[in-house]
């Protein structure tokens, strides 16, 4: 489906790559920057129409014909400017989707209460990735099978992993999980219950989705 019209407000890297991504996928794309310099850059580098104006001003919104936009994306530096752009787009111009970028992750819930539901927080996204990374420290790769009902995971057993020193049968792996292979140095071992897990092992774990958390807890530990 080809979109009719997207208005991107902002001039940072997110605005740039968003404009680049959507320039051929929408009938009309318009970038609104705060400085004439960056408007020229958008026009020259992406061949995208760009104007320098304060998109928080009602007169400017009318010039942009904001009412005809399907999507307005507000990517300016300040949360309150993006809030005003998006709320005015919705309330005054009937724009169906208004997306705001925020610095303060708490503003996501706050803005939702104030009527703005499409809010993106970079800090929250990056924070989520970092937290997930530390939780699954030791996961080298994963594959979803059978509509993600089954997971196949390649794990590295670190020196402080919980499973180190335990035999497979004593680990207490949950129902619906299986250690399929242990790679130890050059050796590929087919697991038996009496095998002891060592630091540095690479394990291929197969498990049902619902057993995943418990299985990782048993092998790697430190999940809370």
């Amino acid at each position, binding site marked *: 489906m080809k979109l009719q019209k997207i208005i991107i407000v902002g001039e940072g890297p997110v605005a740039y790559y968003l404009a680049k991504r959507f320039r051929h996928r929408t009938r009309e794309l318009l970038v609104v920057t705060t400085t004439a310099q960056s408007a020229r850059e958008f026009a020259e580098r992406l061949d995208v129409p760009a104007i320098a104006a304060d998109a*928080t001003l009602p*007169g400017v919104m009318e010039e942009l014909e904001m009412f005809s936009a399907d999507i307005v994306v507000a990517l300016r530096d*300040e949360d309150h400017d993006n*809030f005003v752009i998006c709320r*005015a787009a919705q309330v005054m111009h009937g724009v169906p989707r208004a997306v705001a970028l925020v610095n303060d992750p*708490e503003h996501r819930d*706050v803005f939702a*209460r*104030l009527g703005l539901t499409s809010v993106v927080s970079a800090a929250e996204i990056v924070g989520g990735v970092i937290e997930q990374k530390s939780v699954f420290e030791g996961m080298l790769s994963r594959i979803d099978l059978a509509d993600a009902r089954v997971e196949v995971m390649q794990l590295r057993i670190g020196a402080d992993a919980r499973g180190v020193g335990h035999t497979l049968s004593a680990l207490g792996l949950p129902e619906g999980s299986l250690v399929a292979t242990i790679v130890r140095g050059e050796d590929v071992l087919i697991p038996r219950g009496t095998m002891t897990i060592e630091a540095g092992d690479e394990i291929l774990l197969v498990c049902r989705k619902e057993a995943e958390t418990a299985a990782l807890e048993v092998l790697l530990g430190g999940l809370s």
Partner: protein
Amino acid sequence: MTMARSDRPHSLLIVVIGVGRLGRGLAGRLSTAGHSVIAVDHDRERLERLPAEFSGFTIAGDAREVSVLRAARVGEADAVFTATRDDNLNLMLALMARDWFGARDVRARVGDSAREPIARALGVEIFNPNGLAAEACIEHIARRASA
């Protein structure tokens, strides 16, 4: 604060966010009038420049943060004025005070009359210092002209 309020039957709890030239005078005069005033600004120096007659509380912090607005008790306040120099910020803070904290009486400074339609569309009560000053001058001239 509770004592001060019971001493004076008409004393209200008022939060002033942003104490630049406008907010400073507002906070000082409301305080002189006997109200309990909480002044919020991210700039400590501006809080220190509040007039001598100001006897309320000050909170140094960025009012965009929920925790700062909570500390300023905007939810309990009888009135909240958002009076920073940024109109868009004042609108957002007013809506946060009203719709997130449930403040009853909220007014935002909007200095650029071109932005007033947005405030109206979002249902925010505003005050425009420039507009009020112009009105005072026009009234003065009207009185002169009819005299």
